[in-house]
């Protein structure tokens, strides 16, 4: 399915400076592996060494957190927006 993955500002440097990437995927896991296949440098920012999604990075399908869906097995449909939302701490 064609889906759009939104790349947050802190990670755009590792994704060809794009704010979103269009991909073909049937699940969130496929979308993220397709994404890190295209942009290898993103991998260490999204996944820990054991391949798990890092705990300061959340992934949403539309407005729902995949931790409360089926995590990386969460299916995506045409037109869905997958958002990567890492924690940011700036304020000064």
């Amino acid at each position, binding site marked *: 399915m064609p889906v759009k993955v939104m790349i*947050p*500002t*802190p990670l755009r*440097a*590792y994704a060809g400076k794009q*704010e979103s990437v269009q991909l073909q995927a049937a699940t969130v896991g496929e979308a993220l592996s397709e994404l890190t296949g295209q942009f290898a*440098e993103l991998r260490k*920012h999204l996944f820990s060494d054991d391949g798990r999604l*890092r*705990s*300061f990075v*959340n992934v*949403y399908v539309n*407005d*729902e*957190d995949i*931790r*409360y869906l089926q995590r990386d097995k969460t299916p995506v449909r045409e037109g869905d927006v997958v*958002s990567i*939302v*890492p*924690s*940011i*701490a*700036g*304020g*000064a």
Partner: protein
Amino acid sequence: MATKIGIPIAPQTNKPGVSLSKQEVLRYSRHLIMPEVGMEGQLKLKRAKVLCIGTGGLGAPLGLYLAAAGVGRLGLVDFDVVDFTNLQRQVLFGTTDVGRPKIEAAADHLRNLNPEIQIDAYETRLTSENALDLFKDYDIIVDGTDNFPTRYLVNDACVLLGKPNVYGSIFRFEGQITIFGAPGGPCYRCLYPEPPPPGLVPSCAEGGVLGVLPGIVGTIQAAETLKLIIGKGDALIGRLLLFDALGMKFRELKLRKNPECPVCGDHPTVTKLIDYAEFCGIRGEEAPAAPTSVPEMTPRELKARLDRGDDLYILDVREPHEYEICNIGGHLMPLGELSRRVHELDSSREIVAHCRSGKRSADAAEFLRKAGFRKIWNLKGGILAWSDEVDPSVPKY
């Protein structure tokens, strides 16, 4: 420097009352004529006690709007001193405040804005030792801090005390806003159980920030704080608001309370405040310099060797827009491009890598050393140190 913890700098005059003076009725008239606030809401504001952590980018609009709105007791916590780089966005401060403690300049400004309210100024760094004592007298805590350890500290202290935490954070031109710690609502650790390792996410000082962004995000935090006090509207609880100033878009994501959350879940494992620097992988007060086996060259040594005519290849690993601000004639190859452009470098020549402060170039030099480069140096302190020690005409940023 630090005031005794828990004791405001100013004497606690003007105790919260239950009615408005004639002067206050005039001052708050645009609130009073609105049914959503009215006399009832304005008196709630007058009785409210709000503590703002940080008086910087987010703290400035927060302080200004909460004071102007008539929040009866406004606490401010900061330990920093105003510097020139703050003025691009920290609108509580003017040029003549540079060098003053932020807390002092902020309190002066806000007392002038609204002498009817009580400003408690705490010139101290928020720590695990003082947080609970500082928070306990306030109804709402507003997080305008700028680093992960303090964010987790504010969160945990709010959860332990059962106080709402009006949260906002910013990066470059993006912001995140929500209310944590409301009864039955999620907390920061429900959203992000752990912080990123040091160095992986740049701070505003490293990554930059659009000056108006903290203005927008801090103003949204102020709006949510006022709504919590007057009890009107839909509070931003269980919803994470994302703001992108570049695309001028707001988006909203669902935020759920995690039953397994270590601090607010069903079986909490964090039942008192911990060492947040350690939790965030930071030893000591500042992030440690990356361990490196690459030798360092000071700016003075580099200048001496260049003057001698030595064949040195100066590698500038900053970004092109930084090169435009200032440069020392190095060959530009941003750190992020190094791995795929490494073949452009000649490993037989001596290479001196530099960046702004010496951190990125240490990573670059370490990468090159691992890639087989043997004659590689890191310029100690970067172009900032070059400006200090060799050529003061190079602007610092």
